[in-house]
């Protein structure tokens, strides 16, 4: 089967493919739109088709051509000054068709296609369209009238055969620049166009222009002083020409907004003739817009009515009016046409792609009679390619050159950047070509190099992708040897933990801004401190085991006002290629900013923080020793006690130091502290990891039980599956924090699911009520229990859930977090 359908439009074109009962409309690989403006430009030795050519359409009239479909089959030709030759409308159309072939991402190179034509096309015009197809490499071209194509798109969507056995309807096609209406009839399974009308110069673009001319210009003339504003806007030489273009774009946006809202705002600034700055804020209502376009819409209705009158068709004999073309998205167009014609409006198909979709459906039923030609490789064609370019660059663009030997004479080439930001346009191949390829800053830039034959078919080469690194990825960029982490409070563990800022092997320079919050209130004038501590070393390690590389310590005495718990701190960390670290901290609440730059050759140790860390380690050790003794692990307990003794000695030394100590002592103590921390870590690490993993499997069992015995939603099930898929990876991290996070996730999810069950809520409530003696506020607890019983009586489960939450807050473990003091003060 042919399978490929093409809507070769006056303003826009598109291509679709039928495959196993479905149709895919292909997207432009550049910009990802489903349509391609039917505009062709010839500039600087290359051919540009589509969006970029359309931009030039009104400017470079001797080299840019659009609307040539209207001239199809006439003797008129277009003189191209760049080439000093003429091209027929069919030749220009063939360039559009060739460009559409590039949309096909499946790698197929079709040699046959269904191409749509307006109902008004006569034999000569139809043959010219066929010729265009053949010039674009389609050996077999089957033509299909546009209204039939749109009707087929609807027929295949509805899949209702009865609907299409007998009947007639109108196809109302209002696009960006043209209008067509056709009467389509089906008798004994044969669909045909009985009559048609149209206006080649009426469409949605006119509505934008009307809005500018009739609403915005009068508004400007009222609020500012302008002389001949209309002319100054529309003339290319006019002083307000740029404003005109801006307003056209804004008007288009307003038009789209008014499809869903009652009014839309249009906001812009300009300066009037008297030099006064005008800040325009204009509200355009739906009714204003509708009044504006009504005469145009009524004209389309008159044309539709004329068809019915001419053919003596009663309105009641029509099944519906099928709406096609982007402008039929406008609700007023739909309602006005329906009201005036008194025929039901059919908006069941996507109006922008209907013609291409219908063409593809038709193509799916047409036999492919073309002789499929095997794809010829560059070697078979007799083409050898050699390329040369720098793979790394600090420049904004890089020189690329390629040499060709063999049969290159009729071929063309094109280079595109994979992010979608660059397209060289189609250029004729020469024995040697060169291009300056623009590069995205600090990125790995990938370019595709394509060669095409005269029919627009791609010739495979072994060139492959062109990869050029710009900036940070260049040879000068070095990878980080270790993780860079920020130390933050972790109340769960009752200590501090590390948060990854830059991962190991990230390429320098690096920059990141983090927003953290203050975890304890720091009073103005107090000696309490907030510390931003940056460490180098594995994120899974204990903070004290990693190497401190920089810090900012802010004392209460420096604050302009109290820094409240929960307020935000913005921390910006920047590491240069030579690994200078710049830390900037901004306290949002006090509007104070701190900055510190550290170089790797210097070490930075805060005496205050050092003391705090040592004390925390001793505290931690006490608990570890106790646990080891409980487990009768006396050997470990003894080793830990030795470490504790050493740490206590270090504490005494630090206490004797001042914050601005200038000797090397604090560095030596810092080194020793790290060694001891690593020792504690290795003595206890295994135990902690095993413990947390056991907790994890318990939590997993719980959540699985909940999933089976309660009623999770589909999305909750998906959420869990997603997390379980990563199980292997996060268990392999051996990071207690990471595993704890997952345990918390299971607990939250389980709680969410279970608390939807009244039975469960009642059980939890009964449990809490039985622990009344332990509440921090027994009186409040009693009240809440009474209210809980009321909620049960009323069967108000949301209220019961609320009381359960309030009651659990009265239990002592809920306030445990606030007991924790020390740490960095950020979390």
């Amino acid at each position: 089967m042919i399978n490929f359908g093409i809507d070769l439009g006056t303003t826009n074109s598109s291509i679709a493919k039928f495959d196993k009962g479905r149709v895919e409309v292909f997207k432009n690989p550049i910009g990802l739109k489903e349509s391609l403006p039917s505009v062709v430009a010839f500039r600087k030795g290359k051919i540009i088709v589509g969006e970029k050519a359309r931009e030039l359409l009104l400017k470079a009239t001797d080299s840019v051509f659009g609307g040539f479909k209207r001239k199809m089959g006439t003797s008129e030709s277009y003189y191209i000054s760049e080439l000093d030759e003429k091209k027929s409308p069919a030749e220009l159309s063939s360039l559009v068709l060739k460009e559409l072939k590039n949309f096909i991402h499946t790698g197929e190179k079709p040699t046959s296609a269904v191409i749509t034509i307006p109902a008004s096309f006569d034999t000569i015009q139809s043959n010219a369209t066929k010729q265009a197809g053949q010039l674009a490499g389609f050996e077999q071209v089957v033509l299909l009238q546009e209204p039939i194509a749109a009707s087929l798109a609807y027929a295949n969507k509805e899949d209702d055969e009865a609907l299409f056995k007998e009947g007639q309807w109108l196809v109302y096609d209002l696009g960006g620049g043209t209008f067509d209406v056709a009467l389509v009839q089906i008798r004994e399974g044969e669909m045909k166009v009985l009559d048609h009308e149209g206006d080649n110069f009426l469409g949605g673009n006119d509505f934008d222009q009307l809005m500018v001319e009739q609403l915005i210009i009068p508004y400007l003339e009222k609020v500012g002083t302008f002389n001949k504003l209309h002319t100054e806007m529309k003339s290319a030489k006019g002083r307000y020409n740029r404003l005109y273009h801006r307003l056209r774009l804004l008007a288009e946006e307003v038009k789209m907004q008014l499809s869903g809202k009652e009014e839309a705002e249009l906001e812009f600034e300009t300066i009037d003739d008297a030099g006064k700055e005008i800040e325009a804020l204009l509200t355009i209502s739906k009714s204003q817009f509708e009044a504006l376009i009504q005469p145009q819409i009524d004209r389309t209705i008159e044309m539709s009515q004329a068809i019915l009158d001419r053919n003596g068709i009663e309105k009641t004999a029509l099944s519906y009016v099928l709406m096609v073309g982007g402008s039929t998205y406008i609700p007023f167009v739909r309602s006005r046409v329906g009201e005036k014609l008194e025929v039901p409006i059919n908006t069941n198909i996507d109006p922008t792609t209907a013609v291409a979709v219908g063409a593809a459906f038709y193509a799916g039923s047409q036999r492919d009679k073309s002789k499929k030609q095997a794809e010829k490789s560059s070697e078979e064609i007799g083409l050898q390619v050699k390329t040369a370019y720098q793979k790394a660059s600090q420049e904004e663009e890089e020189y690329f050159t390629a040499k060709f030997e063999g049969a290159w004479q009729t071929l063309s080439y094109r280079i595109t950047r994979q992010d979608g930001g660059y397209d060289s346009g189609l250029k004729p191949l020469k024995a040697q070509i060169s291009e300056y390829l623009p590069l995205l800053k600090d990125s790995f830039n990938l370019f595709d190099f394509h060669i095409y034959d005269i029919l627009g078919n791609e010739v495979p080469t072994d060139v492959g992708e062109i990869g050029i690194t710009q900036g940070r990825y260049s040879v000068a960029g070095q990878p980080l040897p270790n993780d860079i982490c920020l130390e933050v409070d972790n109340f769960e563990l009752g200590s501090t933990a590390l948060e990854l800022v830059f991962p190991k092997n990230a390429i320098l320079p690096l920059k990141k801004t983090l927003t953290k919050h203050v975890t304890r209130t720091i009073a103005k004038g107090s000696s309490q401190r907030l510390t931003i501590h940056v460490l180098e070393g594995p994120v899974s390690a204990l903070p004290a085991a990693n190497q401190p590389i920089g810090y900012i310590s802010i004392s209460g005495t420096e604050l302009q006002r109290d820094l409240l718990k929960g307020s935000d701190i913005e921390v910006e960390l920047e590491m240069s290629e030579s690994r200078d670290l710049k830390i900037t901290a901004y306290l949002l609440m006090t509007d104070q900013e701190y900055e510190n730059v550290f170089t790797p050759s210097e070490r930075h140790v805060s005496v205050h923080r050092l003391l705090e860390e040592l004390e925390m380690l001793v505290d931690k050790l006490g608990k570890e020793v106790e646990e080891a003794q409980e487990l009768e692990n006396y050997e470990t307990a003894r080793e830990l006690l030795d470490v504790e003794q050493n740490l206590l000695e270090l504490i005494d030394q630090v206490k004797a130091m001042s914050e601005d100590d200038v000797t090397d002592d604090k560095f030596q103590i810092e080194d020793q502290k790290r060694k001891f921390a690593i020792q504690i870590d290795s003595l206890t690490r295994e135990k902690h990891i095993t413990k947390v993993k056991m907790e994890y499997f318990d939590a997993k069992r719980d959540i699985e039980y909940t999933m089976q015995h309660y009623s999770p939603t589909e999305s909750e099930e998906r959420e869990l599956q997603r997390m379980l898929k990563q199980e292997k990876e996060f268990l392999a991290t051996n990071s207690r924090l990471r595993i704890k996070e997952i345990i918390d996730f299971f607990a939250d999810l389980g709680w969410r699911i279970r608390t939807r069950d009244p039975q469960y809520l009642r059980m939890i409530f009964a449990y809490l009520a039985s622990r009344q003696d332990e509440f921090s506020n027994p009186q409040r607890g009693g009240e809440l229990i009474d209210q809980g019983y009321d909620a049960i009586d009323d069967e108000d489960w949301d209220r019961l859930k609320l009381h359960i939450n309030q009651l659990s807050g009265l239990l002592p473990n809920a306030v445990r977090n606030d007991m924790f003091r020390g740490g960095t003060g950020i979390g």
Partner: protein
Amino acid sequence: MKDNASLEILLRIINQCYELEKKLATSPEAKSLNRNLKRIKTGFEELGLFMEVPIGESYDETRTDCEASIAGEGVENLFIREVIKPIIYQERDGIKQIVQRGVVIAEAN
């Protein structure tokens, strides 16, 4: 990004950030708001969305990162004079992809 719909919403918010940025540039008294704006932009960058404002850059038909309206008479030596919508890139695995082409007005020098 979960799906196209949420990306579209994010793009709309980024476009509003750009509008704010334009307004702040003309009101020095509102300078302190720049920090908040910067924070919002950083948030988007953490989501892998980067905004580029190509104002003042040269423009020609090979630039497919922008959709341009060409004002004035000439079509050679074009420069981007106004940016109506910024270019937005999405970065995944270190590779950038345009998710919103800039909407600009270009004019000859």
